[in-house]
């Protein structure tokens, strides 16, 4: 797949009411008249020339037949050596004011016409083009930047391809007023791809975590509880997750996050642990620390702005209550999440990697976006948990996102691949940040609904599916709904 050279999705909308006409060099009409430079007059306020004044009555008649008026006529180029003037003193320019080089290039033969915004400019252009003095008449189209991340890294970022991020980035790459919290193992504050976006963060690992270590495992480094309050990442998981959300895609030699300018608040509440016999590692946390971290994030302000999205690429089991037949998540986690939701935070959480239908919390709490993982072909990742609501009260999987072989930032300024619903989750979080950036007044509920409604249904017809939820997310289509 040629990910780098795909076409941008924005349809070519003409700028309302604007037409540019190129006259034939030997034409005897308008372009020889004295007409002001467009940059010297204010749009929508100008009446610098009338069609009659510049001998464009025949053009005006075409407009009148369509029920429109030529509101202004200007030249798009200022002649060389022509001093800029103010709007109040804009003065006309004749064709002779252009030097020979400018005339040869045709700069003197171009005129801009402004008519009513509702006019069918494409139709007007077709009719104007039939005039014997006119070489071409065409609508004008707005220009956008072509936002492209570093090709050598983006080549491997299939997750962003799948979300149609290249299209979305033409409209939105994130806003620095939008703060995203990553509650995880921390983040590398010196990683060049993250550093411009990282806020100082906090450490919420307490002595409670000592009780969360399973037999046969040890914390590395030990002790897991630090003296200072910093969110430095000694595991790598949080750094990777943070990069998927918000690595600076506009830098050379960098992966691209789903958003490039949003602020990331790293909160450490997971500690790196190693299994003694196999050497396997993970990061482990205590639900009490997670709950307190969520509460802290909900109260946090950056330049007066609250956190918009919380990423939780983590989870744990719930208690199966034999009396009710329901799984119940940790009460403190749930209370903290409701506290944050009441303050307008959107919560996104991983559904877990056991490949079962058993619910994982906090993903299974109400109104938390639970995220499963898919591979390159939109196939469910074998490890991704799923649910079956007909027999299972917990509602885990709301959407799926890329979670296999995901390239992102690693501690020490490096880049690396990871798998898991942990990696799928920040794709959704990044998308939520993009939507909040695109419309600062939108609510968490509206963002959540836009993500669901724009998801590509998988596993069957549109609607909720036990493996894929509402489907695989799409940034381009979600932006269109905000």
């Amino acid at each position, binding site marked *: 797949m040629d990910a780098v050279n795909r076409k941008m999705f924005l349809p070519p909308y003409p700028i309302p009411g604007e037409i540019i006409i190129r006259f034939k060099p030997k034409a005897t009409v308008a372009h020889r008249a004295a007409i002001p430079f467009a940059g010297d007059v204010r749009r929508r306020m100008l009446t610098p020339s009338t069609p009659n004044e510049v001998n464009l009555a025949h053009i005006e008649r075409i407009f009148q037949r369509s029920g429109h008026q030529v509101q202004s006529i200007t030249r798009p180029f200022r002649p060389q050596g022509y001093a800029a003037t103010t709007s109040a003193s804009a003065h006309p320019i004749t064709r002779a004011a252009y030097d020979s080089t400018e005339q040869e290039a045709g700069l003197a033969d171009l005129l801009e016409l402004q008519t009513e915004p509702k006019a069918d400019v494409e139709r007007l252009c077709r009719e104007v083009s039939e005039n014997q003095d006119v070489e071409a008449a065409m609508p004008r189209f707005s220009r956008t930047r072509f936002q492209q991340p570093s090709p050598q890294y983006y080549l491997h970022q299939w997750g962003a391809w799948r979300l149609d991020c290249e299209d979305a980035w033409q409209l939105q790459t994130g806003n620095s007023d939008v703060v995203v919290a990553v509650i*995880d*193992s921390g983040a590398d504050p010196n990683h060049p791809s993250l550093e411009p976006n990282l806020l100082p963060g906090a450490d919420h690992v307490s002595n409670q975590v000592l*009780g*969360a*270590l*399973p037999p046969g*495992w040890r914390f590395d480094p030990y002790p897991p509880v630090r003296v200072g309050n910093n969110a430095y990442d000694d*595991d790598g*998981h949080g750094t*990777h997750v943070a990069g998927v959300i918000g690595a600076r895609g506009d830098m050379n030699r960098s992966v691209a996050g789903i958003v490039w300018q949003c602020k990331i608040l790293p909160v450490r509440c*997971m500690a790196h642990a190693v*299994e003694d016999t196999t050497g*396997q*590692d*993970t*990061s*482990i*946390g*205590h*639900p*009490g620390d*997670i*709950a*307190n971290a969520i*509460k802290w994030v909900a109260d946090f302000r950056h330049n007066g702005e609250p956190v918009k999205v919380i990423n939780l*690429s*983590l*989870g*744990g*089991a*719930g*208690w199966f*209550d034999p009396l009710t037949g329901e799984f*119940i998540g*940790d*009460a*403190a986690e749930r*209370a*903290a999440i*409701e*506290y944050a939701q009441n303050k307008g935070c959107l919560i996104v959480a*991983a*559904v*877990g*990697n056991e*490949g079962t239908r*058993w619910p*994982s*919390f906090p993903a299974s709490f109400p109104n938390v976006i639970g995220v499963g993982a898919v591979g390159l072909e939109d196939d469910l*990742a*074998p*490890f991704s948990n799923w649910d079956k609501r007909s027999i299972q009260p917990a509602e885990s999987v709301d959407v799926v996102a890329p979670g*296999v072989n995901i390239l992102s930032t690693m501690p020490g300024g490096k880049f690396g691949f*990871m*798998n*898991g*619903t*942990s*990696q799928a*989750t920040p794709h959704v979080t990044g998308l939520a940040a993009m939507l909040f950036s695109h419309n600062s007044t939108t609510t968490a509920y509206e963002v959540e609904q836009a993500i669901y409604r724009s998801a590509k249904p998988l596993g069957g017809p549109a609607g909720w599916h036990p493996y894929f939820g509402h489907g695989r997310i799409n940034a381009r289509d979600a932006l269109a709904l905000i």
Partner: protein
Amino acid sequence: MNGRQSLMPPQCLAGEAILRVVPHGQAGIEQYTEDSLTGIESIDKVLRHHHVESVQPAFRNSGDNELSRLFEVLTKKDEDLEGLIAELRDHPDVEAITPRYPVRSAT
């Protein structure tokens, strides 16, 4: 793929439970500390029976009525947690009590 946590079965945290009291029960239970397990008499009895070591607020700086109704209950590691939960869950001052589970990164 997914090797980082496959060896870790879901297992509740030994000797830990999370307790939410009903709104009017909060005043009594706030009296519990690491040194004192005297608050609501009928709860005290259960706590002593199950060798509960402390009952502490779940949030360090709650400042919120809902959050301040949550308490961490710590017992000895080998204590019968299910028995404690079974006895407390039907108490009129207890809205909910459950064991706790470790949290792992989902990579």
